[in-house]
């Protein structure tokens, strides 16, 4: 009769019985169960070493990444703070420009980020002798010209502005051209003949074109050729002034020669 019993059913019941016995013994003999747990844990120690090592590695990597992220964030904060402090220090330390007989010293008071290469505002205006069209210089190089002027302020259009146009001459060859910007920090000398070979480093200066702008004010140096356009070969020019760090400028005093203001 026993042989006719379903072996799956019999073994299932026996296994259940063993399981219940084991459960009972785990409560009745906790010491025995603890000993079994310890022995089985010890037996698994070696096979589990790779997993433990991998886990440690993953945790260490995670910690490293988190720490690095935190340090980077902190570094960014410190850099910003440092920049702000340095800018404040420079503005404080920058001496109030002295007005020479022909030059009006002015401090840059505003430079919009979205018009970074187009214009700046300075703290000198009509009352100080600033007139529209007057050239502005930095480090002895022309950096723009006054386009609007108030009683105590003036707006200077930079040479890097796309609307800036200024007649210029290559000092070494006497070739004439027009200085123009592109609103992205570049300066070009336009309308130069393509057959002319300009050398890198040749000085560009202002040409005589008006009352407010005397000739011979240096603008910058030729840096390279552009692409042939409309039969002319534009020349890339680098300004002699540090256009990214304009804290003070000199505006040429043009007397009472006229000019509009706003």
């Amino acid at each position, binding site marked *: 009769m026993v042989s006719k019993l379903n*072996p799956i059913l019999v073994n299932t019941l026996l296994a259940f019985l063993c*399981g219940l016995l084991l459960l009972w013994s785990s409560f009745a003999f906790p010491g025995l169960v603890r000993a079994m747990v310890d022995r089985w844990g010890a037996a698994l120690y070696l096979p589990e070493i790779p997993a433990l090592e991998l886990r440690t590695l*993953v945790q260490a990597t995670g910690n490293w990444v988190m720490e690095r992220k935190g340090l980077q964030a902190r570094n960014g904060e410190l850099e910003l703070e440092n920049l702000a402090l340095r800018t404040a220090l420079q503005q404080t330390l920058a001496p109030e420009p002295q007005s020479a007989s022909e030059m009006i010293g002015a401090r840059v008071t505003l430079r919009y980020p979205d018009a970074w290469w187009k214009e700046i505002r300075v703290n000198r205006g009509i009352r100080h002798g600033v007139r529209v069209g007057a050239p502005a210089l930095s480090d002895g190089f022309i950096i723009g010209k006054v386009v609007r002027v108030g009683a105590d302020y003036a707006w200077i259009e930079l040479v890097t502005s796309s609307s800036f146009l200024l007649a210029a001459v290559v000092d070494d060859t006497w070739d004439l051209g027009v200085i123009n910007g592109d609103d992205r920090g570049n300066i070009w000398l336009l309308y130069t003949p393509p057959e002319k070979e300009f050398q890198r480093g040749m000085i560009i200066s202002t040409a005589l074109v008006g009352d407010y702008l005397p000739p011979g004010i240096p603008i910058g140096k030729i840096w390279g050729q552009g692409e042939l356009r409309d039969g002319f070969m534009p020349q890339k020019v680098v300004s002699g002034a540090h256009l990214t760090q304009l804290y003070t400028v000199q505006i040429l005093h043009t007397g009472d020669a006229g000019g509009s203001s706003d």
Partner: protein
Amino acid sequence: MILSALAWLIQDFLQVLVTSLILTPEIFLLISLYKLVSEPMPQRRAAKWIWFVFCGGVLWDLRWASVPGVSGLLNVAALAAVCWVWGRTPAGGRGAVLFAAIAGGAHLFSGVIHYLAWASPGQAAMRTFAVQQLLMIPVLALLSAIYAFKASKTHV
């Protein structure tokens, strides 16, 4: 049985990796169930599997639970239930979907009993339980796909 033993070790390996984070799915139980249904198995051999999964459950409890025997009992119950359902299903109906359903059901049953047996079945325990059941899905999908592939090869 070698494959199931390996599955036990893999499950243990993964549990070591994710200890205190989540519970690994019952890979050992799922692969044992897969082996049981994927090969023609005489009753005497199936009876050996019952003891095999029982031992696997007891060893799992000895490693990861304070009360040995619960997993062994649950594994045996799951295996017996699967055997019973599988044996009473006509050969034409024994497909991957049925396997996925009964193996998934067995896994869910085991998970629920373990969840209820935990000392503090709170929100964290519920989350652990849910994640374990979700992690079971890809394992079960893989085993079902293998079963379907093997079945299509056998029938062709």
